[in-house]
């Protein structure tokens, strides 16, 4: 009979499992990887290299701002109770599910229409701002989760030793490594995102990839560019992974499990989080709304004509009702893709974490593999999956050409998030639990269900949440893989935004955001009520 101790002992099964998971996660990009190694692709050119360094700079800037803003706010929110905490945290997470095109359009409209708007809203600084508003929530959530894993005795001890300042320093030190990894993940996401650069006129490497795919239809060139991009990410990420792999988590003592009570904090905490929400959510949203409220044919003008008798015929009302119809048609698919991707990424990431265990070497390898695969743009995996599905027999279509395929490819792309959170969660568990279980002859199944799962559950939930949000923003993968008739709401926004009335596009965006906000608030509330 397999012993519980096998979960803590080293073994060849660990290396084998890591290799299997890495192979599974890399399967979608294998077709493109093969094309990149074929001879005959055109040279990459100086502009590709120039845009690569520009993108690296933007990614580094966004990641730095993300850490500087997200880490202290996440730590503070974890340790303190203050008015509006849950609602503000949920709102701060919303940029993760918005494609950067939309936020960039919002900022550029603000820059164009508001007199005296600062120049930093344009160009490269505007790109850094757009991406920073997406990286900061990611770092905030991960820092929050890392800080809540502190035990009561640690917090009480720090409080006795040096008051609240000491507690904050302890929590920040505890959360810094996962926060840095989250910032790295956020930075890598920006490398493959053409949105902000296209709107703000900054030549980014993602634009070069898009040109190769969608203008030249040169998949071989695009694949070679992806390979170079991955090489750059590996160069930057390998040292980070080496440091983080050994310091990702310290095993807690078995008795350090009591949660600490949150201290009350004043309105200053609320104001800090509200400022992040203002900059990362409300201002770009205001920019998106400006064309609707400021034109001659506008919300204001329509509202004046709105009466009880004519509201049904009112053009504005018809457009908004049409938006509700679109949401009703696409809501189920949106939720399925988001939740499915979260499940796949979490299972894969946590499985990899379990296999890596407490070995510093295996954890470093797991992180390097996860970060390298994360660098490939969404189109690479999606086109690879489409190619494999085409080459497969028709009876495999329910697996390879279905909603499941979309969930799987989204999840495989984002499994790095599950890996980071899984490594940390597994590493935080006390090994003495396994020893005690083994001494008392507890079967592995019961140990996993009664001890391991409750310990991993909060991190697994966070992984599901973050991956679901990021998957929702991935329009490209859904476009390339969704079964006909099964489009998602974000994809629909992008297919109508070219020439739909601005009111329709804005209505869809607002419904998307409010729907996500309401759903997240309910989930957070349910999670808080769970004993």
């Amino acid at each position, binding site marked *: 009979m397999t012993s519980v101790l096998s979960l803590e002992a080293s073994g060849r099964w660990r290396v084998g499992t890591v290799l299997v998971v890495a192979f599974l996660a890399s399967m979608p990009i294998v077709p493109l990887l093969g094309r990149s190694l074929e001879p005959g692709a*055109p040279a990459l*050119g*100086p*502009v590709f290299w*120039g*845009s690569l360094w*520009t993108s690296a700079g933007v990614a580094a800037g966004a990641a730095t701002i993300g850490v500087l803003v997200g880490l202290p706010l996440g730590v503070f929110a974890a340790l303190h109770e203050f008015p509006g905490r849950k609602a503000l945290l949920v709102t701060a997470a919303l940029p993760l599910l918005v494609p950067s*095109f939309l936020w960039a359009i919002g900022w550029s*409209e603000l820059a*164009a*229409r508001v007199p005296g708007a600062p120049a930093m809203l344009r160009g*490269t600084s505007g790109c850094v701002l757009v991406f920073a508003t997406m990286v900061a929530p990611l770092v905030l959530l991960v820092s929050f989760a890392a800080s809540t894993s502190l035990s009561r005795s640690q917090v009480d001890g720090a409080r006795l030793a040096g008051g609240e300042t000491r507690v904050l320093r302890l929590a920040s030190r505890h959360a810094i490594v996962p926060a840095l990894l989250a910032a790295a993940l956020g930075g890598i996401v920006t490398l493959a995102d*053409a*949105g902000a650069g*296209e*709107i703000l*006129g*900054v*030549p980014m490497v993602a*634009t070069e990839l*898009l*040109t190769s*795919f*969608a*203008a*030249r*239809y*040169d*998949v071989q060139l695009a694949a070679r560019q992806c390979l170079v991009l991955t090489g750059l990410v590996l160069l930057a990420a390998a040292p980070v992974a080496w440091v983080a792999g050994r310091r990702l988590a310290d095993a807690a003592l078995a008795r350090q499990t009591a949660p600490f009570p949150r201290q009350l904090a004043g309105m200053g905490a609320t104001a800090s989080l509200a400022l992040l929400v203002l900059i990362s959510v409300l201002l770009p949203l205001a920019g998106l709304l400006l*064309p609707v409220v400021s*034109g*001659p*044919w506008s919300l204001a003008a329509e509202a004046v004509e709105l009466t009880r008798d004519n509201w049904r015929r009112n053009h504005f009302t018809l457009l908004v009702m049409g938006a509700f119809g679109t949401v009703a048609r696409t809501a189920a698919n949106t939720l399925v893709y988001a939740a499915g991707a979260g499940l796949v990424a979490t299972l894969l990431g946590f499985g990899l974490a379990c296999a890596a265990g407490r070995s510093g070497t295996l954890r470093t390898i797991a992180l390097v593999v996860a970060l390298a695969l994360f660098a490939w743009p969404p*189109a690479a995996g*999606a*086109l690879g999956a*489409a*190619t494999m599905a*085409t*080459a497969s027999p*028709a009876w495999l279509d329910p697996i390879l*050409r279905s909603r499941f395929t979309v969930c799987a490819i989204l999840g495989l792309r984002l499994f790095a998030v599950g890996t980071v959170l899984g490594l940390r969660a597994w590493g935080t568990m006390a090994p003495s639990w396994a020893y005690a279980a083994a001494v008392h002859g507890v079967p592995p199944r019961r140990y996993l269900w009664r001890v391991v799962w409750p310990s991993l559950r909060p991190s697994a939930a966070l992984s599901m949440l973050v991956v679901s949000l990021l998957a929702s923003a991935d*329009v*490209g993968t859904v*476009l*390339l893989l969704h079964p*006909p*008739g099964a*489009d998602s709401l974000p*994809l*629909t926004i*992008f*297919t*109508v*935004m*070219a*020439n*739909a*009335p601005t009111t*329709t596009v804005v209505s869809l965006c607002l419904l998307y955001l409010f729907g996500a906000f309401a759903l997240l608030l309910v989930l957070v509330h349910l999670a808080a009520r769970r004993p």
Partner: protein
Amino acid sequence: MMTRLLLACVVIGIIGCDAAETVVVYTSVDEVFARPVAERFQDETGTTVHLVPDTEEAKSTGLLNRLIAERERPVADVFWSGDPVRAAVLKSRGISAPYRSPLAQGLPAEYSDPDGHWTGFSARARVLVYNTTLIPAEQAPRSVLELTDERVRGRGCLANPLFGTTSMHAAALFTTLGDERAKSFFDGFRRNGGRLVSSNGEVRRQVANGTCAIGVTDTDDAAVARREGAPLAVVYPDADGMGTLVIPNCAVLIAGAPHPEAARRFIDYLLAPETEEQLARSEAAQMPVRPGIVVPGVTPISDLRPMPVDYAVLGKRLEELSNGFLATWVESVRTEQRQ
């Protein structure tokens, strides 16, 4: 009793599933214009249409790559293209099949592929748009070439010529003006501080909000902006010169389509005069290419001076330019913008 009821439900469900025929239509036409046509076909024929629209150019990898990846075992039955260039790409890669619809009678042959791989109908045009608060009507631009004029220095807008209808327009300029004059235009635009933006929709937005004074876009983009009350006017350019580029929609039958009969019926529906009239009356205000269809408020093609181009060869020319001059030119503009 319950078992029989359950069995009845299963049988009804299976019969229900098999009753409706299906056609899968990929389209690069804007969804707000394509979906009403698809829904009308569905209502009139009972055939379920699964419409798969594309995103705006330069916002994603695009549906054409999906068609290329699915070539050996396609999911799509029909590709409804917003321009002939994408249809030509499909033909060059063996993804389309020839189909000469009986409803194509009356459609001018110059808007269709001579081998029958794509059939042109309902067109847009490439137009100049200008901000009426920045440029008075008496100084309205008359030619695309005026984007190199000193008076619009730093305030002219053009979408990326590697994507969408702008790419087709670029290829048309090269074939109409010749290489030297076309290169001179693009270099002049760059030297004049012209702004390269991501898409036609972005041109519309930037001219509407005053960031740009003049831009080149499509008639449907211009129509949307004017409908929303943007301070924007439209000019059909080069009426006295090289002419205005007309861009027809194209219906393409996919080779190996899973539902070939339904595909042909859908293509027949697209090419019918009623559909052209519907698209003309829609907010796209697309111009019927079939003579005799007159819709108030829509400029008929007969009132324009169309640019004389051979649509069948435009795709090949564009491929050369996308890997040559245009790619280099876009790179140089981006390098300057970065500085």
